[in-house]
């Protein structure tokens, strides 16, 4: 008889705790069975647990947020760690996360956009104009104080606003591009070290020299960033500051007229592929993320990085006894102006599809403003926009991070146009893939660099004539 009673009580408790766990949608229903158990519990050990679950469920609604991002393994590890931290601080919030490589992230995002199921919190970069319909502006949350912007300067808020001043998201950090390189390899090959005024010709000569002397790639593959290097940056480095850009400021047309402006870069790239100082398509496909870039594996002397990626590869190389350095992007002429600008690396946005927009906004605010959180993240997504967080991080900066801070400070001192555009229009992906393919066709001798430049220009123009 006693056994039977115990079994009954146990099974009742189990049923109650099960319903309590699944109470996200209907907290009112769960309280009733939980109370019945409270009456029968007396001798049963498990029930106190069930009771507390039921109580918190009644006090504060259980929320499940979904979140996703792209990045390298380091980013995945650190982000997961802070998500667990947040869940511990907010027991009623549960965050389901997914992470991808850059390309896969956007493939997945597009399918979610189509099915109206975009993650509550999601990461977007300069290609956000395409996803504008899915972004829920943070304006109201900033007004109500759910999103704390006290330590974020006006200028840093502005980098993630649209032209009408709507807060699209909170920036994950400030960022700019650069060339990471191994000075020891340069010296061994007798190549001239990069400096603040080095040009693409210097870059080419150094890469060739390193390849000839050491038999490795002078420069690792720029990947899809070769488009940013050879089109966006290279074009904007011409003429006076702000005179040219690849796309115009409003993303409604081209920002330059003469397609042949692209030719020298395409020719250089093709020559480098043919001489072996730059990886061909096959070798390039072996690079899956920044942490197995040829610079890190010791097969190349320099590579293209976003400044926020630098500390990671710096540490990776330090473990092998190599010390990396960071140089600004090469210029077109030594006395010309620099092509790099400070921009938002990426941002976290709240989705229109979210059932818990407020909770999502609260998480984003914590993610950017909490010193504890950012002590784990370590500015891996870019230099924090919150001045307090930045001060806390730079106080304990590792040598690699120090290089990044100094570098970003240096680039912010460069002369930049009043208005510049780091955004990309819908359809850019195809232009990028075609551009990279044309470069290969030039390398294989199928077309000339001039033709490649014309074709790239025509492809880009076609975006606006769809």
């Amino acid at each position, binding site marked *: 008889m006693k056994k039977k009673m115990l079994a009954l009580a146990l099974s009742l408790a189990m049923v109650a705790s099960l319903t309590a766990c699944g109470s996200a949608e209907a907290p009112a229903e769960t309280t009733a069975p939980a109370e019945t158990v409270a009456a029968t519990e007396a001798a049963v050990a498990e029930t106190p647990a069930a009771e507390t679950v039921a109580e918190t469920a009644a006090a504060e609604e259980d929320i499940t947020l979904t979140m996703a991002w792209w990045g390298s393994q380091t980013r995945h590890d650190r982000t997961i760690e802070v998500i667990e931290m947040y869940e511990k601080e907010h027991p009623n919030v549960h965050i389901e996360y997914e992470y991808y490589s850059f390309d896969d992230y956007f493939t997945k995002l597009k399918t979610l956009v189509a099915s109206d199921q975009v993650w509550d919190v999601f990461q977007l970069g300069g290609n956000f104009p395409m996803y504008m319909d899915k972004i829920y502006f943070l304006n109201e949350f900033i007004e109500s104080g759910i999103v704390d912007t006290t330590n974020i300067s006006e200028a840093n808020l502005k980098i993630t606003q649209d032209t009408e001043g709507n807060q699209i998201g909170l920036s994950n950090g400030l960022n700019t591009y650069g060339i990471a390189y191994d000075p020891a390899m340069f010296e061994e090959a007798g190549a001239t070290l990069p400096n603040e005024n080095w040009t693409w010709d210097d870059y080419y000569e150094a890469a060739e020299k390193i390849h000839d002397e050491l038999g490795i790639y002078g420069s690792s593959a720029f990947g899809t960033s070769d488009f940013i290097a050879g089109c966006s940056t290279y074009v904007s480095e011409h003429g006076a500051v702000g005179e040219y850009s690849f796309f115009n400021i409003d993303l409604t047309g081209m920002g330059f007229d003469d397609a042949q402006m692209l030719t020298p870069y395409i020719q250089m790239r093709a020559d480098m592929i043919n001489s072996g100082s730059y990886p061909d398509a*096959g070798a390039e496909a072996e690079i899956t993320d920044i942490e197995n870039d040829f610079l890190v594996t010791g097969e190349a002397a320099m590579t293209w990085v976003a400044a926020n990626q630098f500390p990671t590869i710096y540490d990776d190389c330090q473990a092998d006894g190599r010390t990396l350095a960071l140089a600004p992007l090469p210029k077109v002429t030594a006395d010309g102006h620099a092509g790099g600008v400070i921009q938002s690396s990426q941002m976290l946005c709240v989705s229109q599809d979210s059932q818990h927009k407020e909770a999502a906004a609260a998480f984003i605010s914590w993610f950017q403003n909490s010193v504890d959180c950012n002590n784990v993240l370590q500015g891996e997504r870019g230099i924090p926009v919150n001045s307090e967080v930045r001060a806390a991080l730079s106080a304990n900066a590792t040598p690699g991070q120090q290089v990044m801070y100094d570098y970003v400070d240096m680039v912010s001192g460069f002369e930049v146009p009043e208005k510049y555009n780091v955004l990309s229009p819908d359809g850019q992906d195809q232009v990028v893939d075609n551009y990279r393919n044309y470069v290969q066709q030039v390398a294989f001798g199928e077309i000339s660099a001039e033709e490649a430049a014309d074709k790239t220009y025509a492809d880009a123009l076609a975006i606006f004539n769809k």
Partner: protein
Amino acid sequence: MEQKKSVRTGKWLYKFINNENTVGHVFAFPFIFGFICFSMIPMLTSFRYAFTDYSLGTKTAEFAGLKNFIMLLQDEVFLKSLKVTLRYVLISVPMKLIFALLVAFLLTRKSKMVTLYRSLYYIPSLVGGSVAVALVWKQLFARKGLINMILKAQGLGTVNWFGDQKLALLPLILMSVWQFGSSMIIFAAGLKEIPVTYYEAAQIDGANGFQRFFKITLPCLSPIVLYNLVMQTISAFMAFTQAFIITEGGPNNSTMLYALYVYNQAFKYNNMGYACAMSWFMLLVMGAITLIIFKTSKFWVFNESDQ
């Protein structure tokens, strides 16, 4: 009266439930349901989208008439992908079938190990077009991969498999040939059906092994060759994983298989309407090729009932 009626309906119901047609439909229902929901409706939808500028990002689908199909003909990458895919099919399918037939033939010997070997050879097909296998393949043919290590150890130079646009398709073809298991099993079953008496008669007449293979085995097996040829051609046209994982279509789009380009247009470049048009074009191509195979089959498929 009432009772009689209910007995009659009872009988009718009993008859209906036990009717062969009903039973058949009930058992086929899961398939029919799946087919309608996951094949037919998406296919019809894609047919509609093929005439619009539908994109996953904007979710608007405006009628565009034949614009997508006209654009196809001007698209360099499309024409290249068509060429690459035809080349892939023309090389990989015959190689796969020859290899499958050879192994199946070897495994007709009466030995206890035959079942084991058959299972072993079937394993690559079980893992199928999986991502894991493609990644292994990528490593094997990498610049410093196993294949190049072996070539180097033999004193031969290393080969830049995925950097050379003339060679890059070869590892992908080899991967598909390696997965010959399902054709092999079908061939093996066909080989068993050939009456032993034919071989015995031929042997008495003094036919050697080659003659027996070409005069008896091959003609008797030709209906099965036809089946395998059609099935493998269709699946080769739809090859995707290898190109997506190993080469991403490069270098210079020399491994841009058709399915990969459809995928890129649909999900990467956000031109779902265009991608749908491409899919329907591929359906026409595949339909035409299958038709040609069937039409020519009367010249080479041996059918005993015709004799």
